[in-house]
């Protein structure tokens, strides 16, 4: 019977850990997309300097969790977002309004998709 409880405990721990990971990703991605949306609003108002600061802080926040992201997410997804940040920062530097908006929206969507693919929904399970 001891083996049964050990197995059940490991299963429960795994389930909780995966749920915790999903919950953490939700907060993390919301924070990042929030920063990117704020940056876009500032850029539209012509404040490119603060838009740059906000995007850089989002990028730093992303990079600070690099190890965790690499261990839990597909590397192709994390690489895509890394490249996306570089692209958005370049457009801010060039102050290309249209190009920046498109790249920023794409980046925000990619970040959002990371959480959505981990979200506990019937759609994802099946």
């Amino acid at each position: 019977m001891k083996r049964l409880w050990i197995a059940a405990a490991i299963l429960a721990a795994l389930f909780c850990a995966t749920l915790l990971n999903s919950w953490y990703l939700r907060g993390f991605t919301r924070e990042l997309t929030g920063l990117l949306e704020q940056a876009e609003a500032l850029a539209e108002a012509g404040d490119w300097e603060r838009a740059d600061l906000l995007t850089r802080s989002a990028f730093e926040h992303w990079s600070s969790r690099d190890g965790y992201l690499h261990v839990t997410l597909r590397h192709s997804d994390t690489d895509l977002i890394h490249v996306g940040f570089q692209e958005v920062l370049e457009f801010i530097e060039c102050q290309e309004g249209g190009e920046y908006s498109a790249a920023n929206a794409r980046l925000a969507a990619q970040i959002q998709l990371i959480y959505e693919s981990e979200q506990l929904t019937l759609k994802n399970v099946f």
Partner: protein
Amino acid sequence: MVIAFLRTVILYLLIIAGIRLMGKRQVGELEPSELVLALIIADLAAVPMQDFGIPLLTGIIPILTLLCITMALSVLTMKNVKFRAIVCGRPSIIVENGTLHQREMQKNRFTVDELMEELRMKGITDLSTVKYAILETNGRLSVLPYANQLPVTAEQMNVTPEDVGLPVVVINDGRVIERNLHTRGLDRNWLDKQLAQHKLKQPSDVFLLTVDEQNRVYFVAKEAVG
């Protein structure tokens, strides 16, 4: 990650159900849960091993999940008879008193050809001599002939044959197994005498030499190459 966990649970239970529905003869020697584990686990390990773009965790979590479910199922099947019947199934009586149970055969997708093949493999050609033929949960057929069809035992004949015990291999393809030699309380001198009796000089000329508990020797020399 939570999706990988839930998918693993669902797929594992689904495949077990599938294997159970396929019938016992598909199972072979493994129980359904063991067969499913063997089917899935190798593939799960291979994918993150080959594709470096996939985190190792996506392989580790499903494997851990599978091992834990298998562990839980094995304990539950040991403790609970009803649960064991659900997961492993029950033995099916295919032949009873020489009569075929066709419904049981259909239920297990067990054909007459397969039954006859299994019986022939057990040295039985006449179905009417079979008291019971039972399809076990591991897919094997147990055959119990009528008492009058069973071979006569020494006890029934009031004979007390000499029990030779288990023969051990002392020389295996030219190699002396010292441990087995000493187990029988023998030594190299005894072995040299045996070789001399068979006009051989060294153990490498012997293919097989066994010694039973009565120290009786079974000897096979190596065939000449060429």
